[in-house]
């Protein structure tokens, strides 16, 4: 009995650890998507934040400076995305893809030039990382709690404040917001900046809390899983949180199920479990599991009439 309880607790802790960057990233993405700015660049923001967090933490020895650097890196990309999509009304998907590719290359280029370790940052000692707060075995560093707090905060901001009401309006019908005398651009810029903030925290978590340093392509598609979680949660904070936990659980379970034979099913390929978030999202988008409807103005640049 004790074994089962401890097994469940360990799986729960593992799930939370894996889900934390997804939750942070997905909540950030929600702000952007709700305002009508599609963000396929979450992956790139997270990767850039992970790199700069680890680099600054390694050089200065301060994990907090690392977190700050991670946020700044993600915010810089968020501003660039906003500059291209809001100011210059460029294609949002193209911009997101560009930033992902740019960051995938740039982190390795800068990492090699600065640290000469094949794209990795130097390994971080325990005081250069964010340490667990209460339960050393569970890895409950502060960002895990931040992620848990960000979910109700996002729900409250988007659903219960004037800012949130306007944010939703600008994602559905920017013309109405403009007609009410509120700046569409400024609202959308605030949304992408919030997105950068949380994606930056997610990236910092990856390199200086969950791991002890940056390695190339360390996000490994988690930004896209966060994007999938937003869609799976139908652009609502709590269901998105649930999707992140589900995807985190799948990831935690995938490692444990490797080579295990399940009764009646035989050996489940670990690749299938890893692919499930993507597969489920495809099914959901195709309308086979309920219907996911994006904000109506998502992806459409707003042109102010003269």
């Amino acid at each position: 009995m004790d074994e089962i309880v401890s097994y469940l607790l360990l799986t729960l802790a593992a799930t939370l650890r894996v889900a934390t960057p997804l939750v942070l990233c997905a909540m950030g993405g929600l702000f952007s998507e709700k305002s009508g700015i599609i963000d396929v660049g979450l992956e790139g923001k997270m990767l850039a934040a992970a790199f700069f967090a680890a680099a600054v933490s390694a050089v200065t020895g301060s994990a907090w400076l690392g977190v700050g650097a991670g946020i700044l890196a993600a915010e810089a990309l968020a501003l660039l995305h906003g500059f291209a999509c809001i100011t210059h009304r460029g294609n949002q998907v193209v911009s997101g893809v560009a930033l992902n590719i740019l960051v995938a290359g740039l982190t390795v280029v800068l990492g090699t030039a600065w640290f000469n370790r094949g794209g990795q940052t130097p390994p971080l000692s325990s005081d250069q990382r964010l340490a667990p707060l209460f339960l050393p075995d569970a890895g409950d560093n502060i960002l895990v709690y931040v992620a848990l707090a960000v979910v109700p905060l996002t729900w409250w901001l988007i659903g219960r404040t004037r800012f949130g009401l306007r944010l939703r309006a600008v994602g559905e019908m920017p013309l109405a917001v403009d007609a009410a005398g509120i700046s569409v651009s400024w609202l959308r810029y605030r949304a992408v900046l919030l997105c950068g903030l949380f994606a930056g925290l997610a990236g910092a978590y990856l390199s200086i809390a969950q791991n002890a340093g940056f390695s190339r392509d360390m996000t490994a598609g988690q930004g896209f899983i966060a994007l999938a979680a937003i869609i799976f949660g139908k652009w609502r904070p709590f269901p998105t949180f649930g999707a992140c936990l589900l995807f985190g659980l799948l990831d935690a379970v995938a490692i444990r199920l490797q080579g295990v034979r399940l009764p009646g099913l035989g050996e489940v390929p670990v690749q299938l479990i890893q692919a499930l978030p993507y597969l489920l999202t495809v099914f959901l988008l195709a309308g086979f599991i309920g219907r996911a409807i994006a904000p109506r103005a998502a992806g459409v640049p707003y042109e102010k009439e003269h």
Partner: protein
Amino acid sequence: MIASRRGPSGPLPAWADVALLPLVNVALAFVIVGIIVRVIGVDPLQALRLLVLGAIGSSESIGYTLYYTTNFIFTGLAVAVAFHAGLFNIGGEGQAYLGGLGCGVAILALDGVLPAPLMIPVAIVAAALFGAAWAAVPACLQAWRGSHIVITTIMFNFLAAALMVYLMVNVLIAPGSMTPQSRTFADSASLPSMQQALSWIGIEVATSALNLSIVLAVLCCIGVWVFLWHTPWGYALRTMGHNPEAAVYAGTNLRHMTVLAMCLSGALAGFVGVNELMGVHHRIVLDFPAGYGFAGIAVALMGRSHPLGIALAALLFGALQQGGAELAFEIPTITREMVVVIQGLVILFSGALFNMPRPWLQVLFSHRRDGSGA
């Protein structure tokens, strides 16, 4: 086209719109590249010199440049065909992967039976079919179920990677092999290298990875050009991209056209597998698409989605890939990933920020007009 052509005011001369603006965009990207090179402490001009030398300095390096170019032509055309239909295919990576699987499986099944003149065409067709099938699923899901093709093709890249790892580790791995790769193909399934092919007609070149796939790439360029601008289907496809309502009015079935465009796109991307597996590796390996699918977006944007432009852009990216590798060898502070940075910046400036320099050019041209009028 993916980039909106609307500017604030005042049209540009046609040549400026077609040639100057794209060149300004690419130039901006390279200015940023120069700054990054400077930041990591390397002299940009020195780097440029080494890069050019590495790309076209010898017969061997030219061979490698053209070999990379081949891949970029395939994925660039793939993205461009979808662009013309108003679709954004980010799934080139996965389609290239599946194309490789297709030709690989066909070869593993038949290379003991078929002679080379039959085996090679069958394998090429198999690559096209598998690539097309992998693109057809997102296309059908968009056409009939309304799911967005961008998101679905992204997801299909990851699904392709997971599928390939599973197949290579569990099914297709050569017996007794420690690494996940298939058995070596029989000689009947290998595309002649350019060195072999040219020696038949008495020309000697250095050995490189360049093989006859580049002929296929050139044929694809011509084929895409003929299809898009000189057939009724190509016309219908481009009409759908410009104005779906007009296409419906003209009697085009948008669903069928979406699937057709994506199948063509996927088949073109699938040919990367031909170049990589039949031309170079001679077995199925993991991770051979190596970012070519994404780079295709940069190639298509830079080549303005025209086969000629794509061939030129692919040549540039091929030279960058090869020159970049040599540069990284000469100056260890610069890594090959510099090329990825350039791809990202080109997509940013030629795609998302396409219209940013337009007002500058408009100011420039209005001054010139005023000057000549006064």
